[in-house]
């Protein structure tokens, strides 16, 4: 299911914990699997459950709790908009509205070209820069419609 390298990495994570607490490596394992496969399918979650010896539903609980895990295929770029309290008070609703209009997709969807996936996520710990969003691994703060346009232009140009 996963490459040998990924399995080795998972085993390194497992080794960090006492043998009877293999399940402690669950979050790291999910991240490794997602990095390799792009998203977490039911099959890979079954595989992880068997590999770590935890009930499959437990894997699903963790995978659905954290917004950084994707249970469906995502586009080349992933935009995660925080909509928690600080961002919401500072206008995340407008940020989302602008993104949806500009990209022509709703939250949770991917642009038809498969380029960009739009996601609403829980607090990313950047309240001081609210409203904010994460593109790939980068944080973008103090968002305005103009800044968002600039960021999207750059993304689209980089693809071209």
């Amino acid at each position, binding site marked *: 299911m996963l490459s040998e390298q990924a399995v080795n990495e998972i085993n390194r994570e497992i080794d960090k914990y006492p043998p009877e607490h293999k399940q402690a490596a669950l979050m790291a394992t999910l991240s490794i699997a997602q990095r390799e496969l792009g998203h977490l399918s039911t099959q890979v979650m079954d595989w992880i459950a068997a590999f770590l010896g935890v*009930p499959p*539903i437990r894997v*699903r609980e963790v995978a659905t709790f954290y917004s950084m895990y994707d249970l469906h295929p995502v586009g080349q770029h992933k935009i995660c908009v925080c909509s928690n309290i600080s961002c919401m008070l500072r206008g995340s609703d407008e940020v989302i509205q602008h993104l949806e209009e500009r990209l022509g997709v709703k939250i949770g969807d991917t642009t038809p070209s498969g380029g960009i996936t739009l996601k609403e996520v*829980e607090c990313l710990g950047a309240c001081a820069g609210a409203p904010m969003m994460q593109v790939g691994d980068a944080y973008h703060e103090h968002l305005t419609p103009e800044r968002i346009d600039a960021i999207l232009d750059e993304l689209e140009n980089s693809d071209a």
Partner: protein
Amino acid sequence: MPTIEIDGRKLEVEAGKMVIQAADEAGIYIPRFCYHPKLSVAANCRMCMVEIEKAPKPMPACATPITDGMKVYTSSPLAVEAQKGTMEFLLINHPLDCPVCDQGGECPLQDQAVGYGKDVSRFTENKRVVKDKDIGPLIATEMTRCIHCTRCVRFGQEIAGVMELGATGRGEHMEIGTYVGRTVDSELSGNMIDLCPVGALTNKPYRFTARSWELVAGSGVSPHDCVGTNLEMHSLRNVVKRVLPVENDAINECWLSDRDRFSYQSFNSADRLLVPKIHESGNWMETDWETALRYTVQGVRAVLSHHGAQQLGALVTPTATLEEFFLAQKLMRSLGCHNIDHRLRQSDFSDDDIAPLFPTLGSPIEHLEHAKAVLLVGANIRKDQPLLGLRVRKASLRGARVMAINSLDYSFHFDLAGKVIAPPEEIPYALARVVAAMGDSADAPGGLRAWASSEPTQSEREIAELLQQAGKDAHIVLGLSAIAHPQFSVLRGLAQALQTRTGARLGVLAEANSVGGWLAGCVPHRGPVGQDVGEGGLHALDMLREPRKAFLLMGLEPQLDCLESRVAADAVDAAEFVVRMTAFDIEDGVPGDVLLPVTPFSETSGTYVNCEGRAQSTTGVVPPQGEARPLWKVLRVIGNLLDQPDFEYVSSEEVRRELVWDADAYQPHDMPRMLSEPETPANGKGIDVERVLDVPLYKVDPYVRRAPALQATRDNPAPAAYMNSEQAGKLAVENGDRIHAHMGESSVELDLIIDERVPTDSVYIPSGYHETAPLGGVGMVRIVKVS
């Protein structure tokens, strides 16, 4: 002990307890949803908020440990404000559908909303809606009602030992559900219905058939296993609608197995026999009791005068009551015949003379969870006695080492510290090697050497070691497969030897109310309470192997309830006169001459004796349906009509009073003088394989076989032949092939399923099915692919 004060009452409380436990013990009410005394503390509903002196804000009583001098106020303005606030939040997303909710009227949320809710909601936004799920045939879901207390999730994880439900998503998107489209398959899943404090998980078969306040409750005891689970049967206009547990910490705690909970469906099944019937010129004619009884008595008299009393045979279902067993044996013995038995699934009776007064667990049920080592021999304790399985699981969680010597690698909800999985024929050898691995001893039973001729394997040595380490804290349990084993006497002798060596406890877990059967004298070699009856009579298997001319069959379906199903069907077929006292109309094709409608356990008074020797009497909860009558009454009247003395009982209590025994006197198993010699297998290893046989938990008796909800679960394996891939390779058959299974003269056509739990040199063909019944019982099977 720390002293605390709750609402001004001084209490001494054991250190380490939570405030809510102290309050519960003192009878002080604190509202709650997620807290349950048998589950871990989650503290996620926040309903049990109380004020604690010196704490800056209200604290959850379920997660606040007591400290010396603590002052708790459960209904101060601060506490009540917190409780009311929580209630308001819980009701935000809860639908106002109480009028169409099965939980209505017995709903903690509804009750507490009356106490702590506002009369008008301030919430104007849209309520959350959760897509409904199908989690199986037993539990109905309405997940929009869920308040996320996670009791059901914790029950699965902590008690049942299989985490099937989980909470996915987070915050407002959190949902309770199973893993992508799976069902909840635990044999204890019904308890989640009781635990759910709202109407999210409700009883599926009972759904929308009654309101809780219309029901009349009556208490009962479950007859499906040897646990003696305490039940409450709820009826509406004399129809049993549902079954709930009655809390009894010594037996079932507050749990019920699904088998005990849903078997009631059979009481109302379409094939209930409600009028007596006589078989005349090829047809079943409905008749009245007088005619049917006269016909019965004439038939019995005819056999008595033409063939003598020894040509009678009586077989009684192990689910019968103590009183029924007693009257059945009294009737037979007063006719001068000892051919009576209830041990329908036993095949080796050779140590009957040294068997204890009755088969027992060897300790109170509660002790099982404190065992340091448990050895299961021929026992699927998780499915056969689900509530004893829970105790073993508890022991295991406390560090006990559980081991198994079985012919099928059962999946348990506890880890096994050692196991031997071998075909039935090998089991006595394996057990003997465990005995031998403990070293030579003068008190070993004679003949041990013959069984333990080869060196013990590594796992057998480990089992021996772990048992010796645990010493008197070890518990050896012989289960239903051990009792059905053709060398049961050897297994018991060897287990007895292990007990002598280690000081362990020894338990034999027989079927249903078999303990009652033994005590009442419903065995051929002993009268009530072990009375000497001299010669004795034929046991269940011999009665069928040397067919009697007349049979009295009480509550059983010979093809499905007898181990040697083929022999049983043939014997009954060939008999001149067969009386069947049954709650259900026959559909098994086994003929009879007269059908007498008797009542199921909901409609009769009687006593059940569990594996501890604890006798529990019940009264019926509803009157008999139609013309059906309790079996004890029918036997009494037949006794009268046959002019037998002392059949004047007017109540089952009167029968019960004739049986007195010392319940506390644990009678150990006698050491066998000599184990019977091993036989060289008749068919050699050749191309034949040995049949592994058990009765799946929803096939054990006529009641559960008629509970459609239980039949729809995934717990009954398909009636097929199961083999591991190695064996299938040897026989050149593949998964999904149609095969003929031959045993002696008989054969059936079945699907072949690859199942790695089955040891090599054997094939698992479950019993209790019409499809496998023609095959017979234990022995060698030849598998031939259908061409």
